[in-house]
């Protein structure tokens, strides 16, 4: 193999598994370390820079970082990254004077954002401090998008939402609430310099089966949640069937319990391993005694004399091979009685308000054609992001889109090619403080993942908006922060210094290191101290070593960043260095058009 190019900004970034997996590339280990040091406001600001809504995301983020967390590879359960984000938010002092501010004079560029969901709000957050004039059009009377209308308040309290949305609006965005955009052509006439479409995927999927339109007690999940959120719906029948088993279904079943239902069943077509809902959302629902019924495929709604009495299902049997369904059979038909049915089988985009003669191209599925890098559609100056771009995702993806779109809008309005993206960067700084002193807590802590306490089952249903999760106590988060493996403290190797004494190889607790003759990747992976079987994790391969021309190879898979290799190396060929990954945002263009600037964040 060729020597690894560790100068490439992605190499060390990939080692920080959580940050790499986070769509907005939140610097997780840095904020966890700050929490450990009691620097909650700093931890909050590090979060905010990447993910904009730490208090919201610390509760409801889809957390792609956690399945990626290195800790899960060496020790089963990942660090509770998401709940530590909430710790930063819960324990922070007032940070309002640290927020970016809009300059006294604008730059004269007017940007329209359609929809006040998290995608648009991120664009506003990035552009307002740079002097842009931002107008947000929102069809509802309150901003927040699905975070407000669909995510129930027992998971995400209104106060948190108001606070973090307020930080952005208070920078000087003009919010036109209750103002639905019904014609793109009309909006274009208002002469904005750029338009961002952040309208989400607002249409819940239908289930056209016999009886669907014969009863008012059959609801579309996202519309029903929205109506609950606005206080239009305040009760539901005692027996409720939820069709579908994604995250929306989980919110529907738990909301039903709070509106008077006593017997709630989530009806799944397939076996459990095919569920779309996150494991923790399923756990939370089952904790509330929701019954999850597998292998039931809906056939018809049973409506007698205009009254919904139940639903007819095919009970299925499946043949599963290698995690895929290869065959299915109907075993029998069953009717399950109910008073209400909530359909939670997915969402779709819909753009009836965009005229098709404006140069905005739509593809065969009637979705706008949007560039994956610039977020611009085929008509220059119009950008899409969040669920509106490629269908439903989640908040953190919408935020990541918002950052990229803001960068494009900056380029588009102030000159330059929107396709010209500033490069990412990495900055390394040695963590060596003295002979045996390192600037990070490198002692592996074997503690188990801490559970987040929940409100008592009896108490939580009293009101719709009682937040179920209580957040970590001081004692709990102090244990949890030490579980982080400091993946941003990189092992950095300097081949000319190595005398091949094997000290690092022998001391490494997880046997990541090998000195051996170089070979092609598969052969090299096979002959390491512990063969490198996780192909998702890269190998580091050094230049030829001075004495024998062999190479130092590190399998990044299970390094626990303990620093013992650096500690035991007699020549300091290994060093532990703190990496800071620089992900450019719109403000990097504003400050300096030249290559990458890496500012230490504290």
């Amino acid at each position, binding site marked *: 193999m060729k020597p690894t190019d560790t100068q490439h900004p992605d190499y060390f970034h990939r080692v920080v598994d959580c940050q790499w997996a986070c769509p907005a590339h939140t610097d997780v280990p840095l904020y966890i370390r700050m929490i450990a040091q009691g620097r909650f406001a700093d931890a909050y600001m590090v979060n905010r820079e990447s993910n904009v809504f730490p208090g919201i995301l610390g509760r409801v983020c889809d957390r792609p970082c956690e399945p990626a967390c290195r800790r899960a*590879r*060496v*020790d089963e359960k990942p660090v509770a990254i998401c709940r530590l984000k909430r710790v930063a938010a819960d324990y922070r002092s007032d940070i309002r004077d640290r927020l970016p501010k809009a300059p006294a004079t604008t730059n004269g560029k007017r940007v329209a954002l359609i929809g006040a969901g998290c995608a648009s709000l991120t664009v506003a957050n990035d552009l307002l401090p740079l002097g842009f004039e931002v107008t947000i059009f929102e069809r509802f009377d309150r901003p927040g998008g699905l975070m407000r209308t669909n995510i129930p308040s027992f998971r995400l309290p209104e106060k948190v939402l108001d606070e973090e949305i307020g930080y952005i609006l208070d920078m000087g965005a003009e919010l036109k609430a209750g103002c639905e955009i019904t014609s793109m052509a009309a909006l274009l006439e208002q002469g904005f310099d750029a338009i961002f479409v952040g309208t989400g995927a607002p249409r819940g999927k239908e289930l056209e089966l016999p009886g669907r339109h014969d009863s008012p007690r059959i609801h579309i999940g996202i519309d029903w949640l929205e109506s609950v959120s606005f206080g239009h719906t305040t009760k539901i029948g005692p027996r409720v069937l939820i069709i579908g088993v994604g995250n929306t279904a989980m919110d529907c079943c738990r909301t039903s319990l709070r509106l008077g239902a006593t017997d709630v069943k989530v009806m799944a077509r397939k076996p459990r391993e095919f569920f779309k809902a996150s494991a923790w959302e399923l756990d939370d629902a089952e904790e509330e005694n929701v019954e999850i019924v597998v292998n039931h495929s809906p056939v018809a709604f049973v409506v007698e004399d205009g009254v919904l009495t139940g639903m007819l299902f095919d009970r299925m049997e499946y043949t599963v091979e290698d995690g895929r369904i290869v065959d299915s059979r109907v075993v029998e038909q069953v009717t399950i009685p109910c008073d209400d049915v909530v359909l939670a089988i997915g969402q779709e985009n819909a753009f009836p308000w965009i005229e098709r003669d404006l140069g905005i191209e739509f593809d065969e599925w009637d979705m706008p054609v949007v560039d994956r890098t610039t977020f611009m559609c085929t008509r220059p100056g119009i950008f899409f992001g969040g669920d509106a771009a490629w269908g439903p995702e989640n908040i953190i993806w919408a935020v990541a889109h918002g950052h990229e779109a803001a960068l494009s809008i900056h380029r588009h309005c102030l000159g330059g090619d929107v396709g010209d993206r500033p490069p990412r960067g990495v900055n390394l700084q040695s963590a060596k403080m003295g002979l*045996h002193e390192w600037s990070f807590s*490198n*002692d*592996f802590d*074997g503690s188990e993942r801490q559970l987040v306490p929940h409100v008592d089952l009896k108490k939580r249903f009293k009101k719709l908006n009682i937040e179920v999760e209580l957040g970590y106590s001081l004692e709990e988060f102090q244990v949890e922060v030490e579980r982080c493996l400091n993946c941003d403290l990189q092992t950095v190797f300097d081949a000319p210094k190595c*005398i*091949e*004494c*094997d*000290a690092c*190889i*022998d*001391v490494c*607790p*997880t*046997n*990541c290191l090998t000195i051996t003759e170089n070979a092609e990747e598969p052969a090299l992976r096979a002959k390491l101290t*512990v*063969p490198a*079987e996780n192909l998702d994790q890269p190998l580091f391969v050094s230049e030829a070593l001075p*004495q*024998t021309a062999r190479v130092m190879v590190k399998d990044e898979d*299970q390094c*626990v960043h*303990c*620093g*013992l290799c650096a*500690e*035991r*190396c*007699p*020549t300091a060929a290994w060093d532990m260095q703190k990496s800071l990954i620089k992900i450019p945002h719109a403000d990097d263009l504003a400050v300096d058009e030249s290559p990458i600037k890496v500012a230490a964040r504290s």
Partner: protein
Amino acid sequence: MSFIRKPTVTNSRLPKNSLGLTRRDYEGGMSTLCAGCGHDSITAALIQAAWELELVPHQVVKLSGIGCSSKTPAYFMSQAHGVNSVHGRMPSVATGAGAANRDLVCLGVSGDGDSLSIGFGQLAHAMRRNLNMAYVIENNGVYGLTKGQFSASADVGSRAKRGETNVQPPIDPVVTAIALGCTFVARSFSGDKQQLVPLLKAAIRHRGFALLDVLSPCVTFNDHEDSTKSYAYTRRYYHPAIHADFVPPAQDIKAAYDHGEAMPVELHDGSRIVLRKVDEGFDPSDRARTIGFLQDAAKRGEVVTGLMYIQPGQDDLHDVNHTVPGPLHSQPYDGLHPGAEGLRELQQRYR
């Protein structure tokens, strides 16, 4: 010296041997030796060998004298017995342990100072007795623990860190051992675990005295230029004369060693050492020729390594002394105790 503990966390794919133990289960305390010391590498090789041989830790006794090298038994197999004896006196203690419990795996770790100066006589007699043990000399050419004085294995012309040049001829433990009739003699290098681990396994399985002279650079006092025991020097003149693979009893060797030049040597317990010569003029079963070969190589300045001499099937301490089978702790009381009458008879013989 490191102040960070080695964490207990292990690689999740670390294999287990038939006892259900991973390599890490054969570890000991955290090394207090200088970072980069060759002795630590030998410790790692010992751990690997013990794991691969599936040694039952409490059936092993680790013995040593005094020196940095003699500290190393503390760094592997915490669950085994251990004796850190007086300087140079480990062979006597090992003789006692081996005599009392012949089922113990006896592992001695010593240094060139401990073995070739103060303990030279003890070492010679342990070989003469053919005590059943593996004896490792961690050879760095200096007294590491007392800050780098030349040892008896230092080469003529080798310069100390502080400048003085060694003028006295070295004692070569390998040549000495062969001359004294030691039944298993090998040399290796801490930086070559591929060679060292099989040699350690063979030495442990050899019945009788197995001497392993392992070059083990002292990073602090003897790894500079002008040293003949540094990493760089050893690698420059390194010359493996023969390859040795260790094959445990149950394993079939035909498939792996079909080609002609492989020579399997069967050991007492049915395991085999499969030798493949690199140098043609060399025969590890011929004492006289091997001594000649080693002396010629020394003149050329080569650091010759590999299994230098082996003579399995010789009587060991227990055979020579017609001792009872099995360890003393398992002897029936009657066998150990002559009784009042027997004692009187015995005393009578000496009147």
